[in-house]
């Protein structure tokens, strides 16, 4: 019998880039197939071809043996393909039902009106069939990320999808939500659906998939049976060489307290407490890590420390001084460097060249702009030095930031921030979306700074990163520190439970346990303080 999905020799070229080069992919009906590869390996492009968003430059798409010529997602949808994008394709102000039925609304009165009752009924019925827990009347912007993902899957099923493509479905989920997702996938395949999911996480691929296809640099480098492979084999296929992401950083030689955060509360735009009474200290020469699933207040906390977000309560001290309400500029000037999580929004001015970007944050400093007049000569020399020192490619200070790859953009930011001679470096997801080589480079540099006695506050959702680099590690959940641990003494599983909000000593709680945890025990901040004391 022919495969449910067969991509045959797909090549997709963009101007100057070959995103897919003669890639084959075969997926059996009723199985879960993982498409594994590093960022930039061409996984999403390949799936966009399957989904009709791109037409392949050459090659063929076959479903159940039938050649297909998709010209648009509509064709793909009609052929029974559904795609769950990494960034959900949901309309925030609309309800779950409206989103699921968007584009295929049941009509009444000869099409003059949407049959709203019918639509709701259909959604409820569909959710029941697959055992999904969704509220059909809730607005998307008000429901959890996990629920949004279920809505996406329901949307595809509503359109009669037999083949579901999931793009990095676990990136935004807690480990427990990931488990739930994989249960859902099992239920779907049991009912005859075919699943393809894109990931760069080896463990997930092995755990959830039946078969794995590995891409690297736009080429297919292997197709393996998930039950007959090893992490090492997959890693080597993915990266092309052996990788060691675990960094041995030696013992911390912590000095004086550089930054101290006490009982800080930050409210977001909707007056919801994003950071809810967090306290910690960062000392010279140590890396203080914060782990947690994205969206648990890390961003707000970091922006509060760096002066980009107003603090609603509590105090932030830097070098012994109260900086709680000082401006961003004052904090930069006093020696606080910040590698922002979103380099394209915050860290670089995309339309500026590197010379101008090298000045960002120092434009009022005496070094490059004495008396408010910018010395472009010095500024250029500075940019050249960063480019040289941090191996930014292409080594051209006149290149505009948007023309650089993500990794090189990040290296430039890291270089600029490190060259400030900071006393504190706040690094937020410093290696997100960066190639492996650059990751190693950035990690080394961070540890070098630590060795020089700089205090480092590191936030990352990559467990292996925070675990590997930090001297002390706090886990944040819903704006509170669940615990502060010694990363070397804590297992990944323990961290996972903490990240899911399960407090240490909460006893054995299953899936339902951690949901109640935060409500049951509303005295978090002392926790972190205590842990702080121990570590110091």
């Amino acid at each position: 019998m022919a495969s449910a999905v067969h991509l045959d020799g797909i090549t997709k070229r963009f101007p100057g880039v070959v995103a897919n080069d003669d890639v084959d992919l075969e997926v059996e009906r009723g199985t879960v197939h993982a498409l594994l590869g590093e960022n930039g390996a061409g996984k999403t492009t390949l799936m966009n071809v399957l989904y009709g968003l791109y037409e392949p430059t050459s090659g063929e798409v076959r479903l159940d043996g039938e050649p297909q010529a998709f010209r648009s997602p509509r064709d793909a949808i009609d052929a029974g393909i559904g795609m769950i994008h990494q960034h959900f394709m949901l309309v925030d102000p609309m309800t779950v039902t409206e989103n699921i039925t968007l584009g295929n609304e049941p009509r009444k009165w000869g099409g003059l009106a949407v049959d709203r009752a019918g639509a709701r009924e259909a959604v409820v019925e569909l959710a029941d069939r697959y055992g999904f827990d969704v509220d059909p009347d809730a607005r998307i912007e008000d429901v959890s990320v996990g629920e949004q993902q279920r809505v996406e899957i329901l949307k595809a099923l509503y359109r009669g999808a037999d083949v579901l493509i999931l793009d990095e479905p676990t990136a935004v989920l807690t480990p427990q939500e990931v488990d739930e997702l994989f249960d859902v996938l099992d239920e779907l395949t049991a009912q005859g659906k075919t699943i393809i999911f894109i990931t760069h996480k080896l463990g997930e691929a092995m755990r959830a998939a039946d078969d794995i296809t590995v891409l690297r640099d736009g080429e297919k480098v292997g197709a393996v049976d998930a039950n007959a492979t090893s992490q090492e084999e997959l890693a080597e296929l993915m990266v092309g060489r052996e990788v060691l992401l675990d960094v041995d950083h030696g013992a911390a030689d912590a000095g004086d307290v550089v930054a101290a955060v006490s009982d800080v509360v930050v409210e977001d735009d909707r007056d919801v407490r994003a950071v809810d009474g967090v306290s910690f200290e960062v000392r010279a020469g140590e890396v203080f890590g914060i782990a947690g699933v994205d969206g648990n207040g890390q961003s707000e906390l970091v922006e509060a420390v760096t002066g980009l977000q107003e603090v609603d309560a509590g105090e932030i001290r830097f070098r012994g001084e109260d900086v709680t309400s000082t401006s961003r500029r004052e904090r930069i000037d006093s020696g606080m460097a910040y590698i922002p999580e979103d380099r394209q929004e915050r860290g670089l001015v995309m339309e500026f060249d590197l010379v101008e970007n090298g000045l960002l944050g120092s434009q009022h400093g005496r070094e490059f702009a004495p008396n408010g007049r910018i010395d472009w000569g010095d500024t250029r020399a500075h940019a050249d030095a960063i480019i040289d020192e941090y191996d930014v490619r292409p080594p051209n200070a006149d290149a505009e930031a948007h023309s650089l790859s993500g990794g090189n953009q990040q290296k430039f930011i890291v270089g600029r921030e490190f060259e400030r001679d900071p006393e504190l470096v706040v690094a937020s997801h410093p290696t997100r979306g960066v190639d492996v080589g650059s990751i190693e480079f950035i990690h080394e540099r961070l540890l070098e700074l630590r060795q020089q006695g700089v205090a480092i506050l590191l936030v990352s959702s990559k467990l292996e990163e925070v675990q590997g680099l930090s001297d002390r590690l706090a886990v944040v959940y819903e704006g509170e520190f669940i615990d502060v641990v010694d990363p070397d003494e804590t297992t990944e599983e323990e961290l996972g439970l903490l990240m899911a909000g399960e407090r240490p000593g909460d006893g054995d709680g299953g899936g339902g346990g951690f949901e109640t945890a935060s409500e049951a025990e509303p005295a978090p901040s002392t926790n972190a303080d205590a842990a702080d004391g121990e570590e110091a």
Partner: protein
Amino acid sequence: MSDAAGDGEGGFVERYSTRALFAGTTVAAVVALLVAGLLFPDSLAGTLAAVLTSENTLAAALRLSVPIAFAALGGIFAEKSGVINIGLEGLLIISAFGAVYVTEVTGGVWVGFVAGVVASTLLAALFAVVTIKFRADQIIAGLAVWLIALGLAPFASQVIYNSPNTPTVQTMGSIAVPVLEDLPFFGALFSASPTVYLLFLAVFCSWYVFERTAFGRWIRASGENPKALDTAGVSVTHVRYAAVIISGVLAGMGGAALSLDLGQFTGNGPTMVNGKGFIAIVAYLFGNYNPVGAFLSTMLFAGLDAVQTVLQLQGIGVPRQLIRITPFVVVIIVLALVGRTQLPEAAGDHYETEE
């Protein structure tokens, strides 16, 4: 899930609280004023109360509302779909002229009305092609639409009539609903120009389209998250073309109503449209993209305008030149109090798929 629903509720209150607060305060202030006016009919409050409760004020406000409200409805369609149509002013101008011109040539008011709508729709279609197909910046292209109409209508008038002002043509007249027209105050709603009724219809239809039809949802999705719509298999481009063209039709009705109500197009300076298209933008922003809300905020502005006209006659001690600018000052104050309006997420962005 109850938790999420609770959040939703909180979010809802949060989202509308400033507006609700403002609306509440306004209503309270008006009520207080009316009571004061009733108690002290000879005071300034009494004068104001009399003006506010006058059927004539309502009638004047309705007349002044028509072009603005039509344009505002058009603006909602375009902007909800993700295309900011700042050229509403231009659409009003071109349709105001087109309507009078064709009426003058054919002698048929309704023929002229349709012609005005067609002229505006054509210009809107040009705007759509320029912004959607050629991905021109919407703001700049909108300004260009305004400038082109601002030049073209008086130019044509000058060529045809040797004057920027057209001769007078017949007007629409008014339709009165028996019995209802005799209602106190609200009678003004039932003895008005046909364009007023058309406006009521347009407000209802717009509301219906957004709240009840699939197309309305597509427009919303196209403005909030075009990729969601695209991946759902609906062409964002088509939806946006349709929405911009509808905005042309609606603005066209506004412009035609404006000039045919007076039976003349005047093209000097900023023309007879004189900023009504821009005020329409204020109206729908303040009305939070809701057709009914836009209509009500238009009525607020037009009501102020009507009131200032009457107040001038009362001689209340404030210089006339200053009374005249009150509507503008009120808009500024309202905006400062209400603050940010929540634009559709993708408004102003270009969207392209590889189809």
